[in-house]
């Protein structure tokens, strides 16, 4: 994870003491997230999109569909891929190869949950069994980084996918020549929706001198010893787990961290769902004419 050097040993102590007395730099408690603001369907050219602010971290997710052949190994499943791009973000603090490795790691984690059959049903992306399927690209770009990119990316991905309009198709099967033809429907108001109810969100739990905190900011990252990113479903089950930060953990800490994650995961999941519904209701209000959309917090829910 990217780290900023903390100015002095005193500042480090100040941050750690704050965490230990359950009052962090921005006034949060250890189990509290920064405010999540999101707006869905912000890009006209993408099938689904989401702009998400998690405190100072801003990410934009766009979903696009591509028509391809099914693979031989899984003839009745479509394909889905996530990429994370941080090349245009100066506040990411790390450069060159290190930055590439960091964003790659996030996209790998996202791909793990997307390709887990218990989280996302890829059969809904299949058009004609054994012939055609959708290849869905979830492209996330980091606009601003102030800590906790994992969680922000997974929130944005879930919000974007739940608002994605799947182009409706007309499949005709010719009995005589046994040819299958697929046509895209002309009517732009005919579309399907993806089922993303099982898609988990990432909850990153960091350990700072024995205390477990969620949603670390940049400064807190620099005093973090180890961090585990959990993929948590809305029922509290854990579907993904990976560690970064370069420190080690004992078993007791590991246990309480997974408890923290499975407690907060369902809360964040339901919060996100509420936000998505609110954003859907708010969309007709601003339409696509508001130029200040990306900068005005009024447009977010």
């Amino acid at each position, binding site marked *: 994870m990217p780290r900023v050097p903390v100015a002095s040993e005193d500042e480090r102590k100040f941050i750690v003491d704050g965490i230990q007395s359950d009052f962090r730099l921005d006034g949060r408690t250890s189990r509290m997230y920064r405010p999540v603001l999101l707006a869905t369907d912000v890009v006209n050219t993408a099938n689904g999109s989401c702009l998400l602010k998690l405190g100072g971290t801003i990410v934009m997710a766009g979903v696009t569909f591509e028509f391809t052949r099914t693979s031989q190994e899984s003839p009745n499943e479509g394909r889905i891929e996530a*990429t994370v791009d941080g090349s245009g973000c100066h506040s990411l603090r790390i450069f060159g190869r290190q930055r590439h490795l960091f964003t790659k790691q996030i996209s790998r984690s996202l791909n793990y949950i997307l390709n887990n059959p218990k989280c996302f049903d890829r059969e809904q992306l299949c058009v004609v069994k054994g012939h055609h399927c959708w290849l869905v690209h979830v492209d996330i770009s980091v606009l601003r980084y102030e800590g906790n990119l994992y969680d922000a990316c997974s929130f944005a991905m879930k919000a974007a996918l739940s608002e994605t309009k799947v182009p409706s198709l007309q499949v005709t099967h010719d009995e005589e020549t046994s040819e299958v033809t697929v046509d895209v429907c002309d009517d732009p108001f005919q579309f399907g929706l993806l089922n993303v109810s099982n898609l988990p969100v990432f909850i990153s739990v960091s350990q700072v001198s024995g205390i477990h905190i969620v949603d670390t900011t940049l400064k807190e990252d620099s005093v973090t010893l180890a961090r585990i990113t959990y993929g948590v479903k809305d029922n509290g089950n854990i579907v993904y787990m990976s560690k970064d930060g370069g420190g080690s953990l004992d078993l007791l800490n590991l246990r309480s961290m997974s408890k923290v994650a499975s407690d907060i995961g369902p809360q964040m999941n339901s919060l996100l769902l509420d936000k998505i519904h609110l954003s859907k209701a708010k969309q007709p209000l601003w339409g696509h004419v508001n130029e200040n959309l990306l900068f005005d917090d009024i447009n977010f829910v």
Partner: protein
Amino acid sequence: MLSNTNCGWVDGPEELFDPLQFAVDLEMTDKSSDNGVRDVNSLKNDDRVFISKGLITKANGSSYVELGLTKITCSIYGPHETTTDESYSKCLLDTSIKFSPFSRPKRIDPLRITYENSNEMDDTEEAELCSMLEECLLPCILLHKYPKSQIDIIIDIIQEDNEANLLSAIVLSTTVALIDACIELYDTVVAKSLKIDSNLLTVCYMPNLAQVSSLFFDGELTTNELDKYVDECIKQCHILHKAICKVIIDDLKNKDQESKQTKIA
């Protein structure tokens, strides 16, 4: 002869210990080959482990590990002066993992262009293993002892048996090679993967410090089940740790005897 303090050179550490006093004899009923251990009794047939070190003599440290049918060599070059300017205060780890073309039933094309920025899922497998390995080695190496330098870890996967064994074997071979290269470590890292149904859990564990250095999980479990899985992994890690200790202590004893014999001669 000039004394050491006068010319400013220090030949070695101030205190010296006989390494054998740290070695604890392990009671393991197994057939030992000349430089390795084949542990048959305590593990299942497909979890059989063979460890040997010092395979590649030109490298600073090297090892060869068989875990089940997975066969892996690891060689370590360094610590040597770093070529990049990313970090000066700490040592840099540069890992590279390569599948040999014949390591899987389906041929892996060695000429395949593995650009870092390509979007192909398959290309990232080696890179992914690299980052996992680095993550699990970072807590165990005393990196601050080697400032302005880097350690190159080069791993060749000769044969891959199953997905679950792979990372475990890679970590095992790297640990043995790091010891062979005499790089200072807090503890030996051992990794064990469990694959039950569609759940894959890998835990990298440092048995003497009782610390988990890295872990990875893909599947679906409740927290209680996950804790049970982690416990099971750690149990298996202890067995692997014994196997590593056996190899290293035997090696140490052999070297000790050799040096004594040359002294007599």
